[in-house]
């Protein structure tokens, strides 16, 4: 009887304990796909709401998981507006008034550049593999479905995240974000998978808030360069202001 119980326990725990590390690693790879060690990307962001639709052209640089800089190139009214993320801090630069603003913790849930992406996404997305525990929900020959539940001590905003990943090549297909009441809040859908700069990544990402079906944010990568020569010092407040 005790042997049988041990065996059952072992059976129950086995898949979880063995694959937990691997799943976190898998998610890390997916979340890091755009960043690599370093990257330089030119992208278009289209934001659609019930009241307006607009397109922004931006350029961005990243180094590792902690450094990220993005600057708006067009439209003219917002040219030069930039965001810098270093570790868990976010600053915005506003050329019109020539001021740098640090985003306080209470505003981290706010929209970034008016899109459906929050400041929090910029800061915490890169830590999802550290802040969540993962379990494999489904698997077939083409894809994995992985569920992420926040670790008890993690300060995160989502109650659950479900990843649908394609196995070969490894790219995300869809990510679903649930709030603490287990209600689906938003979906991110990936497509236009292409091989660029030595990697295969989806070039288009659509953020779809579930409550407002008429709204969405589309990020489309136009020029992508990975593993370029960038130093940590590059990500400075001076650079944020566009001074080289």
């Amino acid at each position, binding site marked *: 009887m005790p042997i049988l119980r041990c065996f059952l326990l072992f059976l129950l725990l086995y898949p979880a304990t063995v694959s937990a590390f691997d799943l976190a690693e898998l998610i890390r790879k997916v979340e890091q796909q755009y960043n690599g060690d370093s990257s330089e990307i030119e992208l278009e962001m289209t934001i659609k*709401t019930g*009241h307006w639709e607009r397109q922004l052209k931006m350029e961005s640089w990243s180094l590792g998981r902690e450094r990220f800089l993005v600057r708006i190139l067009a439209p003219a009214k*917002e040219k030069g507006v930039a965001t810098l993320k270093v570790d868990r801090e976010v600053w915005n630069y506003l050329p019109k*008034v020539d*001021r740098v*603003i*640090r985003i*306080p913790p209470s505003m981290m849930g706010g929209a970034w550049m*008016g899109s459906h992406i929050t400041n929090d996404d910029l800061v915490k997305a890169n830590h999802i593999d550290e802040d969540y525990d993962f379990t494999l929900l489904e698997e077939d020959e083409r894809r994995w479905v992985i569920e992420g539940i926040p670790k008890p001590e993690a300060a995160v905003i989502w109650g659950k995240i479900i990843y649908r990943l394609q196995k070969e090549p490894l790219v995300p297909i869809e990510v679903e974000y649930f709030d603490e009441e287990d209600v689906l809040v938003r979906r991110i859908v990936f497509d236009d998978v292409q091989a660029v700069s030595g990697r295969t990544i989806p070039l288009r990402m659509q953020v779809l808030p579930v409550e407002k079906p008429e709204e969405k944010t589309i990020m489309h990568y136009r020029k992508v360069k990975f593993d370029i020569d960038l130093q940590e010092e590059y990500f400075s407040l001076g650079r944020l202001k566009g001074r080289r």
Partner: protein
Amino acid sequence: MLWQLALRNIWRNRRRTLLTLSAMVISSALLILCLGVFSGMLKDMLASATEQYFGHLVISAKGYQDDRDMFANFPADLDLPALRHPQVTGYSPRLRSFGLLSFANNSAPVELLGIRPQHEQQVTSLQDHLQSGRYLREEERNGAVIGAGLAKRLAVQPGDELVFVTQAADGSIGNDLLQVSGIFSTGDQGHDNSLVLVPLGWLQQLLVLPGKLHEISLRVEQPRQAAILAGQLTGGMPPELEVLDWGQMLPEMKEVVASYDVSRMIIVTILYIATGLGILNTFFMSVLERTREFGVLMAVGMRPGQIRLMVLLETLAMGLISLIFGVGLGVLLSLYMAFVGIDLSGSLTPITYAGGTILPRLHAVLETANILVPAVVLLLVCLLAGFLPANRAARMQPVVAIREE
């Protein structure tokens, strides 16, 4: 004749009468004071919500007050007859925005109210709560009057330059500089920590909402009757707009006001039951002591009804005397508390409750109901307390009564 008898009777045992009178005078005076202070607290609370922020009535697009949606706006040049209603003593057109206010390394989420200084002062009284600096001026382009808590958090003084960032109505990133004109301190945490008044034109430009408003806030003559006026004004409104009174915007506050009326009656009842028992005791004693006297009166031909009336007149006379002195003393005490009051800010901080703020001070307000209710109830209690002894006196048998030792 009965009146003369009654008046003479009450002065026969002076000590007893004076003791009873003093109990009645003091209880009614204290009651008037107590209700006055209670009303003062309530008025402070209501004023903190209405006269420092909402106004008594607010005209806005239907549903705007629920979610404060930036797009639920209306043109500023609408001709609204409500603004000319004789009971409306002032109105203030406003535009609202939520965003991030920043100075040097500090930032805080804030609520901006775009206002026209001369109009806003007709509705709210923030100009009376300035801690430093001055109120917005009509010609100022980008001045800002900010709450004291916010000023502390951002570490700013009048004259400092702030950056405000939000999302404009066309989706663009609205950002511009503001210059701190003044700092207000109302004691209300919510407003002191996040409210900023800015010129209406400046905010319209920033939000890309030229000529638009989110609300028109009204001041009315009688705040407690605002709900009735709101109903009257609704008729003349364009269909897309609504008029809300403070009770609809602050349902908790409405509950507090309603429960105040109930607790006032409870306090009156408790205090007067005690006073009433005292009066009852005095009169019973005096009737018992005067058994022989009543016997003689009846023997010489006074009817039981007249005896009853006489005792009742005695109590009524005492009631009237204590009423005059009680109300006089109560009003004097209330006046003192209204003009001087007691400052408790040394030991208490303001409490924000049900959307309003209770200030750390004892301060009375004179309201007719607060004087009328104690006065009328005092007379009723007197007559009730006199009724039992009067009945007893009237039912005496003359022969038995005269023989009583």
